């Protein structure tokens, strides 16, 4: 018995050695990746410790952790900080509305393109509607700001027709609608691609069977196409829930002109903007406090993904974890 164990151990060590030398080249290839993820992903994860300290740049992270540890003081501070809860509320509202709007608009565009029976037009439309995804928010925000500005062409047209000048950039509520519409404008076409590909994979037998049953096109969409894309849709929905607390810093930063539009900024003050302004924009928060906000944000995001995943699994879907 003992001998057998030793033998097995030896052979394991032997095969380990052999595997090691056989994979030398691959191990060499993976070293940069290990270094990269250690430095740029894991080092910042270690850095969240400053959320529990009174961070002093002179002492660095390590020094601050040993000398300036204050426990949950930063969290107590942000939970009593009114702007934090405003930002949290804004983020939840904007983030979840964005998810709902982009989810439905992508499926809608996919259905439209999938159902249309004009090959050539379809190709052209796909190229046009997917293009804006590849523009930066700098460009998209510039396009929207200039086209919809109070002195711009559309505003002029509205005034000619007897309306008021457009106040998209100076009215908080209208600005929110600009946020959602520019999101659809930029991303709906690109997000639809994945659904169109899934629809292409639905078995034609199902449609033929539906034809025999005398189903109309709407009925076929409802009973064949939509159930066919359901697993994909739910997968994408779960993944997007993780980003609900991000709510689009890039977009807001650019649509407000580098956060310079004080009139509307209140209504789009999201967590990321609070962190950015609190630290770099003269918001008067310490790095420990803004890190605490960031940590809170990732924790809530993580819990949201897990919860959505659980709910999806309870409903009999596949889930991601």
């Amino acid at each position, binding site marked *: 018995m003992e001998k057998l164990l030793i033998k097995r151990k030896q052979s394991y060590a032997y095969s380990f050695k052999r595997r090691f030398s056989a994979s030398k080249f691959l191990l060499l290839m993976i070293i940069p990746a290990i270094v990269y993820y250690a430095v740029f992903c894991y080092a910042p994860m270690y850095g969240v410790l400053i959320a529990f300290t009174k961070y002093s740049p002179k002492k660095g992270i390590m020094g601050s952790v040993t000398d300036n540890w204050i426990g949950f003081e930063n969290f107590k501070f942000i939970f009593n900080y009114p702007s934090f809860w405003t930002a949290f509320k804004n983020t939840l509202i904007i983030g979840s509305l964005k998810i709902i709007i982009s989810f439905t608009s992508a499926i809608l565009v996919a259905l*439209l393109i999938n159902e249309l*029976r004009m090959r050539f037009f379809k190709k052209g439309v796909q190229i*046009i509607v997917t293009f804006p995804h590849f523009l930066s928010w700098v460009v998209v925000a510039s396009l929207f700001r200039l086209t919809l500005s109070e002195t711009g062409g559309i505003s002029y047209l509205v005034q000619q027709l007897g309306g008021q000048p457009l106040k998209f950039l100076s009215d908080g509520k209208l600005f929110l609608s600009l946020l959602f519409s520019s999101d659809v404008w930029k991303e709906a076409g690109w997000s639809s691609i994945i659904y169109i590909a899934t629809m292409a994979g639905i078995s034609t037998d199902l449609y033929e069977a539906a034809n025999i049953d005398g189903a109309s096109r709407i009925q076929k969409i409802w009973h064949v196409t939509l159930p066919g894309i359901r697993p994909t849709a739910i997968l994408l929905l779960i993944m997007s829930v993780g980003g609900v607390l991000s709510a689009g810093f890039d977009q807001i930063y650019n649509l407000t002109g580098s956060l310079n539009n004080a009139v509307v900024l209140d209504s789009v003050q999201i967590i990321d903007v609070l962190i950015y302004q609190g630290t770099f924009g003269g918001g008067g928060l310490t790095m420990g406090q803004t890190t605490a906000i960031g940590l809170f944000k990732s924790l809530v995001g993580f819990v949201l993904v897990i919860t959505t995943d659980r709910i999806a699994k309870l409903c009999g879907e596949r889930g991601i974890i």
Partner: protein
Amino acid sequence: MAKTKIDKLPLARKERPGPSNRFGGFDVVLFIILLIFALLIIFPFYYLFVVSITPQEIYVNNPLTLWTPRVTFDAYKSVFNDSRIWGGLKITLILLFGGTLYQMFFTVITGYALSRNNWVGKNFVMNMILVTMFFGGGLIPYYILIKTLGMINTIWVMIIPGAIDTFNMLLMRNYFASLPKELEESAKIDGANDVQIFVKIFLPLSLPMLATVGLFFAVGNWNSWYNGMLFNSSQNLKTLQQVLQDIVYTPSSGIPNPGKIRIDDESMKMAAIFFTIIPMMLFYPFLQRYFVKGIVVGAIKG
């Protein structure tokens, strides 16, 4: 084999024969809705382009200029005479070529290593990478890291932290893994070493996916502004996108006027926007299928 599989991925449901395939009233409705959506996307580009070539006096009288009787390129002349634009273009081109090559190198070798079977510690590395897709340190620890590394106010901050993009890396990994295993075995029997197998067999077979990933990186670099905004304050290091922010977001843009012609600020801003998107507009229609392939393959496998 895998190559043909991907090339043949249909983008839309095949037209089916039969009586229900006639072009009917339903199609007219679909056509009109899609046409409106497409026109809404085209409109800002068209409008901005027309304004950018319209003389000031015509635009002032009618801001909704959809057609111009007289064409002027004065706005473009001002843009071309602005040294900021060329400085930004220089930095962006460095990122576009240098950055893309750098990112491709590290992303592709990582993807390849993770696609091969059975090496010591593979699962550990894979999990270590996947965790980063769910957890992150957040902005401030990242900022402190960059500062500690001494990359503030250098061009490196816009290149080095982007070495590996996890999504693109997984795309490459899945593609390499989909190539038949026999390739590697038969090459080994023929006496090829590991480097040769990677460079001479797997890389040439992966050209479509390399193109896709390379294009994703190139677009990202062309659009780069966030890291520059966060970490660099020097004017010489501004990317084209940052210069565009400066021009468009300032109420009165500071572009110097050539000659004595008074040019409207708005049309200069629009010309500057056009300057930054024209390369994309020219190439996109021909490259669209590569982008689509990437996301479709990635989603089906991932």
